[in-house]
């Protein structure tokens, strides 16, 4: 789960990381007065909001209010701006921008720490073109606090000196605390600004929380509004705990297990079809889960056919079959089912008049034909 900038900054501030003073507004009327020039930053969970006009500046309250009017009408990569963080504007002339980050490193099976003196919006370009400018360090697995000396070694390596070096190292340790305390899979400050008079401050903040750890991070869920990050269909899928990704085509795909669903999409494409979505009901799905999966894919307009591909291991075919017959899909369905309790499942489906394939390829081909109208519905 991605956190908004304002929320990540709240967490950073709790850990003692310096962030600009600011308030979150949900409408222009919530801004009452200004003490100083401000930056107005749209709170959307996509990158590139600056380039999309989502970050503006204002020197007085009237300008600020008219900027807010504008921002609350904006859509950034399809997302409506619903919240704006109004922050003290800093004097960034002559400032240095650092990058500080931690991320789960699947290959190394640990957390990797990163630091660079070339922070700012071009960090990804730096990563691909001058990777030596980003210092990386794989941390001891299971580390609960980052040792200050390790942070200092990184700060020294990116060329910092004196009090700036020790302060940045200290912020690095605090950022790691934020990561550990909140079960984050990513925590980064980009940029960490060092102003020309030596002030150090995190002007942007990113944190992604491990979805699998939300059961012990419930306080983070309190003021989360998922309506922004997801389409209505995706919201419904998340509510049901289904892995769903929306695609462009007209053949809905439901399967159990991400690999099998991906292979199903690939096979649909091989036969000339266009998948409408990726939907993984997960392992051990019940009849109820299957009904919910059908409800989710059916929300999409212009659907031509549904390809259901089940190879049950921990999932039992009879549960899946019961879910299908209870939902009674209105859209033509290409059904393939094998594995655990296969006979029971097939029996239920046949009793309700469904035809069941054994071969995934044959079934995919049939789903494409259904969609193109070659097969009767």
């Amino acid at each position, binding site marked *: 789960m991605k956190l908004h900038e304002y929320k990540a900054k709240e967490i950073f501030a709790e850990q003692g990381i310096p962030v600009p003073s600011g308030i979150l507004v949900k409408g222009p009327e919530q801004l009452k007065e200004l003490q100083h020039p401000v930056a107005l930053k749209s709170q959307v969970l996509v990158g590139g909001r600056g380039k999309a006009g989502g970050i503006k500046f204002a020197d007085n309250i009237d300008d600020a209010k008219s900027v807010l009017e504008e921002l609350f009408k904006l859509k950034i990569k399809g997302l409506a701006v619903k919240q704006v963080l109004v922050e003290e504007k800093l004097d960034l002339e002559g400032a240095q921008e650092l990058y500080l980050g931690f991320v*789960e*490193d699947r290959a190394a099976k640990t957390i990797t720490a*990163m630091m660079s003196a070339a922070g700012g919006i071009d960090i990804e370009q730096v990563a691909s073109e001058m990777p030596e400018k980003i210092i990386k360090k794989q941390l001891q697995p299971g580390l609960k606090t980052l040792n200050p000396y390790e942070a200092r070694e990184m700060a020294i390596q990116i060329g910092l000196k004196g009090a700036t070096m020790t302060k940045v190292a200290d912020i690095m340790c605090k950022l790691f605390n934020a990561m550990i305390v909140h079960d984050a899979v990513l925590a980064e400050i980009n940029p960490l600004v060092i102003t020309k008079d030596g002030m150090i401050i995190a002007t942007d903040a990113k944190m992604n929380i491990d979805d699998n750890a939300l059961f012990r991070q419930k306080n983070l869920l309190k003021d989360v509004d998922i309506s922004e990050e997801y389409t209505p269909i995706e919201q419904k899928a998340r509510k049901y705990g289904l892995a769903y990704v929306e*695609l462009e085509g007209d053949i809905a795909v439901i399967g159990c297990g991400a*690999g099998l669903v*991906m292979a199903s999409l690939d096979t649909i494409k091989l036969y000339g079809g266009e998948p409408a979505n990726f939907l993984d009901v997960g392992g051990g799905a019940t009849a109820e889960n299957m009904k919910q999966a059908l409800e989710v894919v059916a929300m999409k307009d212009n659907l031509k056919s549904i390809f259901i591909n089940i190879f049950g291991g*921990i999932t039992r075919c009879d549960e899946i079959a019961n879910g299908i017959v209870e939902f009674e899909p209105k859209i033509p369905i290409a059904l393939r089912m*094998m594995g655990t309790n296969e006979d029971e499942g097939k029996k239920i489906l046949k009793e309700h008049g469904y035809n069941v394939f054994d071969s995934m390829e044959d079934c995919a081909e049939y789903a494409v034909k259904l969609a193109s109208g070659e097969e009767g519905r």
Partner: protein
Amino acid sequence: MAIIIDESTRVVVQGITGGQGKFHTRVMREYGTNVVAGVTPGKGGGEVDGIPVYDSIREVMELADASIIFVPAPFARDAALEAISGGMDPVVIITEHIPVHDSIEIMDRAVSHGTRIIGPNTPGILSADKCKMGVMPSHIFKKGSIGLISRSGTLTYEIVDALSRNALGQTTTVGLGGDPIVGLGFIELLDLFEADNETEAVVLIGEIGGNAEELAAEHIKQNISKPVIGYIAGRTAPPGKTMGHAGAIISGSAGTAKAKIEALQSANIKIAEKPGDIPELVKSSI
């Protein structure tokens, strides 16, 4: 022969009193797995289908060699650490969606104890006609000479079924597990299959994301003499949402199906376009 588990493996089921644990204990025994004990803390002294239940791994250290874990994700870290400290090997973690920070700790402890972890979020491991520690549908497997390693669960069944229908039986089938951080990987298992007399060829099933397949390709070039046949799921998947800047910095351009397929092909590995093509490619290789 087979790798990691065989008819001599004595298995303990952690979480045996839960729904999944109970069901799959029965199915594993039907397949011939020697399930000797179950562990559920607080339920010690009872039994499930005649199998004695204990409160801790410590009490079954002398009885069992290997553990399979069905406990819910919030308790999986503790169960896995208990299995590792109790000397179980392998430890097969069926549980899915374990928090990443927990998995990191599990894998670190396993490395320092020399324990082989399979999973989490794996269908398990099965040595055909010998031992099954997992949740795969038993009836699709057939004894033979093909080793199979897969990052995907259900896709594995798909391919095992295709092999069996084409009279290509298997030595051992291993699901690496679908969680972000897992135990054994392609490389360790390729080495085991290379050393296994009965295995004639290995099928490697990958998917998009990470760089495990790229590293495996490199390893195969240097160390594996047996034929390897590959399949990569996700050729047509849209690029996933990246994890901030950090994800891009760490993974770079690796992880696409195209990159993986090219890496494997450069190691002379034949790549199937769809799962159904695999049996033909295997037959032409052995």
